[in-house]
């Protein structure tokens, strides 16, 4: 009996397994456009669900307030706020949307849009953008394009988060560098580093992690005129001369004693706060860092090390989800919500992000309320956003590996970048198979 039972149990398990497999195979969804008649939704009352990854910082207080205000101003729309971890969103979205249980509208990172779009999870937003009256000139240069995939618009911009240079002014003062004229170009920046070195301070701590080594490398790559990928993202190009120059400049900081070797994760921002270093390349989100409270600090635009101005920035965007049997009224209501949110995003800097909408950012009140953001706003005309291609985040991970290997001295900058590009190209090819064309 025991044996027979075991056989049966396995048989049952196989049946269940195959059953799951077949169900998973069965679902499919086509992608289609959605019609939005005008900017303001006038149809019957609907409840729309809104997924976002705003679980930390000021957002959990700010977002419910905004949504309450929106709901009270719009009698025929109820927005349901569903915050969860970003990584959870990425894992739940495909199944939820295909089962018709996903959100009507969601906020996603720029480098996730194409991944979602390639799976048919996101509605084409060309007509929505048109009906809301948005054009590329309503947002910083290049930001609308960051929501495009295969020539179609899939996302509407919400926020941008460029890199900047954070400065501990007390450290500069002590080393005899004038804190009122913070270096903005290669010559003065290196001069300041040399002066700091003579005073016994290692001025910029270079690390080999996403925060902040990767973002600094990408900024420098663009400053030297290079790019991460070719335009249609079929080939990685960050091992170009520009890339080698950028990474070599970073490793030279270590070689010249301007940076210690083997900086651990977050070691550099902690050192800036502890007064052990003067400069740190970091994102605008650090402006809300409470540890800066006692610090005599300032943020400025990243210095121009290469031949042209450029800086890394990430972005977040609104996406209208293509649920199985998506109700057009809900999508139209979501569009109204998105427009209202963008118009009312003046307090979004509280979360350490810049509102994407130009009219909100250009309002003098913003700089008056958040003076530390001025340099970041000024950077936007030459900011570069993340590449859009399905599965691009896995390819971007190879850049961090290269930076890490070069910064820890495991490989020369050229060797590290060449190896990473070979790997990146293989992954791009693999993504083609995974996501189809």
């Amino acid at each position, binding site marked *: 009996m025991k044996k027979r039972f075991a056989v049966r149990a396995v048989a049952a398990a196989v049946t269940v397994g195959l059953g799951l497999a077949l169900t998973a195979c069965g679902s499919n969804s086509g992608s289609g456009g959605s019609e939005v008649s005008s900017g303001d939704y006038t149809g019957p009352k609907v409840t729309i669900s809104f997924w976002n990854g705003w679980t930390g910082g000021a957002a959990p207080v700010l977002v419910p307030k905004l949504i309450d205000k929106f709901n009270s101003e719009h009698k025929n729309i109820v927005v349901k706020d569903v915050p969860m971890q970003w990584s959870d969103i990425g894992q739940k979205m*495909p199944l939820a949307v295909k089962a018709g249980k996903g959100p009507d509208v969601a906020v996603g990172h720029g480098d996730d849009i194409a991944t979602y779009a390639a799976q048919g999870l996101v509605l084409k937003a060309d007509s929505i953008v048109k009906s809301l009256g948005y054009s590329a000139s309503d947002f910083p240069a290049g930001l609308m394009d960051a929501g495009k995939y295969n020539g179609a618009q899939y996302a509407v911009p919400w926020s941008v988060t460029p890199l900047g240079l954070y400065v501990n002014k007390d450290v500069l003062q002590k080393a005899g560098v004038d804190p009122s004229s913070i270096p903005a170009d290669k010559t003065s920046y290196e001069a300041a580093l040399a002066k700091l070195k003579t005073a016994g301070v290692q001025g910029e701590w270079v690390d080999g992690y996403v925060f902040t080594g990767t973002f600094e490398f990408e900024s420098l790559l663009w400053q030297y005129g290079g790019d991460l990928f070719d335009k249609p993202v079929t080939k990685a190009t960050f091992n170009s001369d520009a890339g080698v120059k950028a990474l070599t400049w970073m490793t030279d900081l270590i070689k010249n004693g301007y940076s210690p070797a083997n900086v651990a994760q977050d070691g550099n921002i902690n050192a800036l706060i502890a007064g052990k270093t003067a400069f740190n390349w970091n994102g605008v989100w650090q402006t809300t860092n409470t540890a800066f409270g006692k610090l005599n600090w300032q943020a400025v635009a990243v210095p121009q090390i290469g031949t042209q101005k450029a800086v890394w920035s990430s972005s977040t965007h609104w996406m209208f989800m293509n649920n199985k049997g998506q109700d057009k009224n809900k999508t139209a209501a979501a569009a109204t919500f998105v427009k209202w949110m963008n118009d009312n995003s003046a307090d979004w800097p509280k979360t350490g992000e810049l509102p994407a909408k130009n009219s909100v950012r250009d309002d003098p009140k913003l700089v008056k309320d958040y003076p530390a953001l001025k340099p970041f706003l000024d950077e936007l005309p030459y900011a570069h956003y993340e590449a859009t291609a399905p599965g691009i*985040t*896995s390819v971007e991970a190879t850049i961090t590996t290269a930076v890490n290997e070069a910064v820890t001295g495991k490989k020369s900058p050229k060797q590290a970048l060449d190896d990473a590009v070979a790997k990146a190209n293989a992954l791009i090819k693999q993504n083609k198979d*995974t996501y189809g064309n």
Partner: protein
Amino acid sequence: MATDTDSLVAPRETGAPRPRGSARSARSTRSARAAARRPGGRRRTGVAYLFLAPFLVLFLVFVLAPAVFGLWISLTNWSPFRATQSFVGLKNYIELFTPGSTTSGDFWQSMLATGIFTVASVPFLLLVPLLVAVLLNQRIRAGSFFRATFFAPYVLGVAVIGVIWKYLLDTQSGIVNHVLGMIGLPDNLPWTVDVPWAWITLVGVTVWWTMGFNTVIILAGLKGISADLYEAAALDGAGAFRQFVSVTLPGLRQVMTFVVTITILASANMFGQSFLLTKGGPGNTTRTAIMYIADQGLSQNNMAAASAMSYVLFAFLAIISIVNFRLQRERAEKSAS
């Protein structure tokens, strides 16, 4: 599903009554007694299955079914984004064993990292707890305080110990390097940034974190060894060391087999420590197999390859476990004869 399993595990053919909680009635007590008089083996098996049923259902739904499903995924070109998946036979496995394919280099590097970590950590995770358990088994003052102290780190989550040690082991501002500097040793060791230091960190932190668990199990084993045996050994003139070798170690054999097996499996499944402390660096040197599989399967949606990798890792662990059990059994037989 639940009803299916019920019918599977219910002792239908035996004709034995199902225990339905009606023991209050005299009739059922009588029939139960009557059943007990019959050759009772089958009936008891039925009841045992009934008690096991809840676990069995969970096991089938959450362990066996996904495992079978995973095996099937590993034989297809599975993509969660395509409507249809096609069967590709052993292609995913062959790619893992083909140098130069997208996954093979990274996968075997991560297997090597897992191997290095397992080989380096398991001896410490056995010897240190054994030593601590023997010490705690002495009649010492505040014994339960020390027991609690050694066990304490184990109750912390990996996220907590990751954050704590990241601060302590920071290259420039960590306390560990600061203390080393004060006593005249190098104060710039890259504990989490470069090898071999990163390996020392991962092994050391893991030993500190999980040794309490092994200690408690071994301690329980020590308590189970009869004091008479020590007394007899002492009468025969055995010193402390001889008693340890001839009484303690043989007495712990069963327990040690268990501890060795679960420790190897736990070390081979290491993920959180690397993920938090070293980020797999420098480069991808300390990226473990589980870390790479999770990245491929869950972050990069490369599920077919990730499933194949899981099964390769599973094969390795199964072989190691079987060899381990065989060795222990042979030793037991040898010492018994």
